[in-house]
């Protein structure tokens, strides 16, 4: 059985995004995160997400990015669905937009849900694009260069490197289950595989910590790095552009927000229904599939 390979790991390549310094890319990640938290308006954030996807397309990683986004899609969609029917920003004075059977969809809810969704989507797309085009060791070196604490830096790098290892373990465990007659396909099959995978992960962590200690991890003094990262003129321009966009965007977002310039986005009824139904299918559909598979397994 060939299973879909979904993982936020480095994808080999030589595109412009791969070649860009990790420092420049990290600048953009921080900038977009700051802007996403500061902005209430979803449209610029959706635009950033689309630009991020375009960057992924030019870097040749769009299919891999798409698969990861698809996995996160139910979580992203849940924000819109929950906010649409139970808005957090208004209680009794919400404006009903449309009635779908027993469900009332509120204008403020859709507006707030779109805002939350756009924030998550913008951050997801940029972070995935950067992680997929940056070798974990380069990310490690970049973080070390901006004086991130060594232990924190190491934890991040190890987490990223463990993902493909655990993914391989899951595949082996699923093969072992099927070899013992178990119908291990779909979501339901993943639950029994957690025991051996996590038991193996704990064992690995234990061995890793002993191995690290035996190789002088935690010793004081400056560390050397095998991989050196470059930071050329183009990287500097991209990094400065990231800082400018981040600072200006965040300032503009916060100013508009504090000035009360965050109007509720009123969409046509048909568009409201289309957006809500699409998000509900994405959110509820996955839950139903998971429950049915669990019941059958």
């Amino acid at each position, binding site marked *: 059985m060939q299973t879909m390979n979904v993982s936020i790991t480095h994808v080999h390549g030589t595109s412009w995004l791969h070649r860009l310094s990790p420092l420049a890319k990290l600048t953009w990640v921080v900038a977009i995160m700051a802007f996403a938290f500061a902005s209430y308006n979803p449209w610029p954030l959706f635009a950033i997400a689309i630009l991020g996807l375009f960057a992924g397309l030019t870097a040749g990683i769009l299919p891999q990015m798409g698969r990861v986004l698809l996995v996160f899609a139910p979580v992203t969609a849940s924000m819109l669905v929950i906010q649409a029917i139970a808005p957090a920003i208004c209680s009794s004075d919400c404006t009903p937009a449309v009635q779908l059977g027993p469900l009332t969809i509120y204008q403020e809810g859709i507006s707030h849900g779109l805002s939350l969704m756009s924030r998550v989507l913008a951050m997801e797309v940029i972070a995935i694009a950067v992680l997929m085009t940056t070798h974990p060791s380069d990310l490690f070196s970049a973080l070390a260069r901006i004086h991130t604490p060594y232990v924190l830096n190491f934890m991040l790098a190890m987490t990223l490197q463990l993902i493909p290892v655990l993914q391989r373990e899951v595949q082996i465990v699923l093969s072992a289950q*099927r*070899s013992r007659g178990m119908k291990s396909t779909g979501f339901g099959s993943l639950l029994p595989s957690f025991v*051996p995978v996590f038991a193996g992960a704990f*064992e690995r962590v234990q061995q890793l910590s002993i191995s690290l200690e035996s190789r002088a991890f935690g010793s004081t003094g400056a560390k050397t790095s095998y991989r050196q990262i470059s930071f050329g003129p183009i990287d500097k321009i991209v990094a400065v552009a990231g800082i400018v966009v981040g600072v200006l965007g965040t300032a503009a977002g916060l100013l508009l927000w504090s000035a009360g310039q965050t109007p509720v986005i009123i969409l046509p009824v048909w568009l409201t229904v289309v957006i809500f139904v699409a998000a509900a299918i994405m959110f509820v559909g996955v839950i139903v599939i998971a429950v049915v598979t669990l019941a059958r397994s």
Partner: protein
Amino acid sequence: MTATAPVVGHPSHVTDGPMIVVREARYVYPRGRVVALDGLSIDVPAGQIVGIAGQNGSGKTTLTKLLNGLLKPTSGSVTVNGMNTGDWPVQKMAAHVGYVFQNPNHQLFATTVEEELKFGPRNLGVPDEEIPERVAEAVEFFGLQDVLALHPYRISFPLRKLVGIASIFTMRPRVFILDEPTTGQDHRTTGVINRLITRLGERGDTVVCVSHDMPLLADVSERLLVMWNAQLIADGTPREVFSDREVMGRTHLTPPQITQLSLRIPSRAGRPAALSVDELVDDIRGVSPAAGA
């Protein structure tokens, strides 16, 4: 009422022909287009114990995964107990081919050893009243009386390995595939596994054992296959294969030390290689009066 023979695919069906038939099997991994097996053909009669040796990446594991249907051949065919593995899901093949993974941690899921032994038969739909009988047989066969109520992760690694094999044993497959059964095992457990394989063969089960442990293969195998670069380059008795200097040199395999010694004794030149200390001692006693026979 007349009894009818079980059809192909039924758990109790036993083929009239060879238990394993591989015809021009080729397997190319989808990623990277790596040819892992390149046109391999073998017949294995029922009840034979077959060892497979070769360097890492030579195609041994790919071949065993083709045998239980975890991988389907890119071209050619693989038939086990009359079932073409390309036509049957792994879950159905599991009743006929038991695959023991190298690392027992990958195949143990239950909370007690006893539950672990019941896991496979339950998946196969074995009636409830038959399962205790199978578990009892496995407990006796593998000597697991003292660990039955324990969690599989709370017993020692060698014992866990035995539980892994026992968990396949309770499924009563016609063919056992053992992937590196002695890796990481102490001397005692290696001996136990050695005897188990021999007993499985005596019961009429077909055993395919992939290993880098040459003394084990010399001890238990009736037939030894050597893989090299996705191809089968030797197929014979362990004695024949270990005596083939060209095959040993090309694959960087090292025969058991006693076999090497037997091949180097000048007075034994031209005689078959010995596979055990006893064999060599008997042989020397027979050919060399000076040895005190």
